[in-house]
């Protein structure tokens, strides 16, 4: 990397084209238009416009990344070329869209979109000029930000991000805290009818800057080494203290948040329970299971059949009585479905488990079992659990159920992880043949993993059934399995806190951003891809994996010695 970094025309144009593809994408996919009414800054900047402005900005920024301090001017120059190209491509869309009807193919290339792209200009010629020049200017801005000193750069970026985030959060905050007395003045101060007020912009920007500066300062300060000197006993007190504090916080959290956020938390929590369960199967034991939703469904259906008071009523047990059966049946299902796949490896396992998941769903949906589990109409009137007079009725109360569920499951997973069983799982994951040669019974170990994972999913399903109050087969799509798998990998495979983070990212965030409904899955997909490209090890990697990732490069003995020890494999 000692090579002198000098941008070339080719690079600049290439970047510009990438930026152009981005703007075309957000325009034609309909995002610009859909978010046109969604103001970030009141009467000034809409989210739709922001989406158009970001690509040239980013292109300019990246363009400048490729230059070093000596070529500052040329960096900005090349950045502006990139932005020019991006703007020109957008302008081309405008011209083309005005000349012919693109709508026959691209449904969003509508007059409204063209109207937005005109940016209030009267004639096409002026609008084209505005787009091209605007693109260039924006990327110059991006380049300038990139080339400014690091401290200022990160302060600006942090401030801008804060403004954008707060702008997007307006609706969400209103739904959550709208009814609270303490929130109204804050709302009045920060927001206009639509979007941030100018006061709000300034305040949030400064807040972002402050956070950035504070982080920079605390990063530069040498770390104190008090932690290590703390005695074990004190550590224990701290542990207990934080546990109690956490419990109290959890207790009052739903009351503080209100029904809508509690509902979201519950959904997240149900996925967390499943995530912890699947983490045992995939993360610890390395068995790729794509049909995990089957056990979730079984748990839910068992509770449904045993408790419902509707038309399919059978024994009408209480939820509490049905719960152990749900867990047990799921566990047994885990063992039974585990047996045929014992000898299968890797992707064969993946597709067969996926098949199991689909079989369960298809069967649940069919007319065959309709008299018992309701077919497509599902099971209605699943009662809420009750302790004495306390009914777990609303999301705020169900929350406690979810929290206890997570607590139990996390505790079990945590204990198993570092025990003999957990080590056997991990050995299995690393090398099945060697694990067996080391005296590990593969059959028992695998089935134990399947059974534990399935039982957790069953618990999750049982809670889900009562949370919803009814059960429909379409809740048990393949997407659920995929979601759970994705969240444990995004969180950091094998790590229990990672499951929490992953669930919040992949389940909570999309739920929160419901107003972007149409583009939720689009962003979800993009997030998965970007996440894996940027942080393939996940947000909170498992303890041991972290070591390997931070120690990168310090040991590489193998490659040195390998030539002397060729891996001659005899038959």
């Amino acid at each position, binding site marked *: 990397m000692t090579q002198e970094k000098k941008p070339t025309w080719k690079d600049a144009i290439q970047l510009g084209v990438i930026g152009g593809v981005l703007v075309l994408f957000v325009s034609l996919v309909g995002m610009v238009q859909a978010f046109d009414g969604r103001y970030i800054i009141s009467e000034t900047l809409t989210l739709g416009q922001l989406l158009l402005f970001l690509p040239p900005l980013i292109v300019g920024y990246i363009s400048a990344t490729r230059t070093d301090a000596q070529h500052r001017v040329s960096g900005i120059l090349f950045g502006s070329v990139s932005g020019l190209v991006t703007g020109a491509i957008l302008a081309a869309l405008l011209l083309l869209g005005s000349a012919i009807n693109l709508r026959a193919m691209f449904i969003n290339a509508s007059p409204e979109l063209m109207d937005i792209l005109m940016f209030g200009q009267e004639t096409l010629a002026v609008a084209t000029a505005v787009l091209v020049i605007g693109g260039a200017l924006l990327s110059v801005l991006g380049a300038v930000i990139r080339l400014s000193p690091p401290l200022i750069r990160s302060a600006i970026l942090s401030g801008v991000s804060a403004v954008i985030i707060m702008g997007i959060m307006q609706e969400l905050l209103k739904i959550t805290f709208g009814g609270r007395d303490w929130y109204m003045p804050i709302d009045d101060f920060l927001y206009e009818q639509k979007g941030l007020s100018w006061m709000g912009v300034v305040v949030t920007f400064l807040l972002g800057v402050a956070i950035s500066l504070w982080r920079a300062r605390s990063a530069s300060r040498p770390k104190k080494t008090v932690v290590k000197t703390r005695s074990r006993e004190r550590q224990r007190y701290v542990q207990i203290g934080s546990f109690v504090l956490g419990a109290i916080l959890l207790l009052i959290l739903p009351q503080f948040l209100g029904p809508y956020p509690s509902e979201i938390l519950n959904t997240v929590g149900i996925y967390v329970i499943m995530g912890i369960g699947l983490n045992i199967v995939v993360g610890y034991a390395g068995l790729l299971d794509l049909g995990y939703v089957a056990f979730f469904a079984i748990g839910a259906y068992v509770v449904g059949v045993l408790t419902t008071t509707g038309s399919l009523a059978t024994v009408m047990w209480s939820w509490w009585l049905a719960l152990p059966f749900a867990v047990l049946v799921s566990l047994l299902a885990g063992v039974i479905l585990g047996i045929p796949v014992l000898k299968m490896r890797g*992707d064969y396992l993946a597709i067969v488990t996926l098949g199991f998941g689909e079989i369960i769903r298809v069967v649940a949906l069919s007319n065959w079992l309709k008299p018992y589990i309701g077919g497509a109409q599902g099971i209605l009137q699943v009662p809420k659990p009750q302790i004495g007079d306390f009914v777990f009725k609303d999301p705020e109360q169900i929350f406690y159920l979810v929290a206890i569920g997570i607590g139990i499951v996390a505790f079990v997973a945590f204990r198993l992880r570092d025990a003999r069983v957990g080590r056997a799982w991990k050995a299995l994951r690393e090398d099945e043949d060697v694990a067996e040669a080391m005296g590990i019974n593969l059959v028992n170990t695998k089935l134990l993993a399947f059974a534990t994972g399935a039982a957790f999913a069953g618990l999750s399903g049982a809670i889900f059934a009562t949370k919803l109050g009814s059960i429909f087969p379409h809740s048990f799509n393949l997407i659920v399995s995929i979601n759970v798998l994705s969240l444990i990998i995004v969180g950091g495979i094998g790590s229990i806190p990672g499951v929490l983070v992953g669930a919040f990212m992949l389940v909570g965030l999309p739920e929160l951003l419901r107003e972007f409904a149409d583009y939720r*899955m689009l962003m979800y997909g993009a*997030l*998965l891809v970007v996440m*894996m490209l940027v942080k393939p090890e996940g947000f909170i990697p498992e303890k041991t994996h972290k070591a390997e990732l931070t120690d990168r490069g310090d040991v590489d003995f193998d490659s040195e010695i390998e030539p002397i020890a060729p891996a001659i494999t005899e038959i």
Partner: protein
Amino acid sequence: MLRNLLKKYDTTDLVMYLIGAVLAALVIYGSYQTLSSGKYSGEVWLDFIIFGLAQGSIYALIALGYTLVYGILFMINFAHGEVFMSGTFTAYFLAIYLDSTGFWNQHPIISILLALVVAVAVSTTIAVVLERIAYRPLRGAPRLVPLITAIGASFFLQYTFRGLYGSGVKTYPDVDALKGSWNIFGIEILKTQAVVIVASVILMVALRFYVQKTKAGRAMRAVAEDKEAAALMGIDVDRVIVNTFALGGASAAAAGIMYALIFKQVNAFMGFIPGIKAFTAAVLGGIGNLPGAMLGGLFLGVVESLGPSLVLDGLGIPAPYQLKDAIAFLMLVLVLIFRPSGIMGENLSEKKA
């Protein structure tokens, strides 16, 4: 004697075989019941089989993409179903344009070929771009990572195309020349189905030839065998991988056009289920194995088409057609119990080191 036999198989094997035997017995019993009841005539069965073959050849063509990529990168390209969708969905616009000018029915062969060209162009581009952006940077990563990227890409593509072309279901124009049926050796075969079967057989043979006999195909097999050795032999591994994705994309696009001929309807989510079925077919045949994928696809198609009426009807299950997916997956489980590496996969159980 029995003791010796028992020693050769441990209890797990026995339990597995037992489960397999029970499933097989159910299948046989159900078939027997249906056949002896005479509910369906021989012609109906033939129709089922031919439809199954047509549908199976579509699965087979998609499965080729899975198997090609898997053979080289050992990754499940979960977004392959979307590659299939993208081409077909885009070619729809050409088809309705041609239909509106009347060209579609005046020159059906040229029209379908044109649509095929468009579909192949789009699908191939998507497949190659996907490889470049989403998979190539992750080549050394643990295997789950590219799987998740692929899943993400799958969602992304579905919703992108929904955004671009709208969420409604679009219907391909009818091809007048392919209406009705031909009588071949006394068997009535729908023209569309006949065309699809013949065309896909030709394509599969061509593909097989390409992989076995051409220089590019040989390079592909060399890379599948051993990437590093291939690189040392002067093969540009990156290029071969791009080629592989392109080839997979092209065959998926061809499958897409055939799908459009038979089922007519296209939308942004049409790729998901056939994608999963095709992947199942690839595994069924022994993933990484080209003839296996073809065989697996045909087998799956026929099973899906025959299974519900043949097996489930006989078992007295109502509305059996709802369970065709379950039958397909059950067959998969059954096959893999007895042949854990698929129909054509090499048997790894003895030589697993």
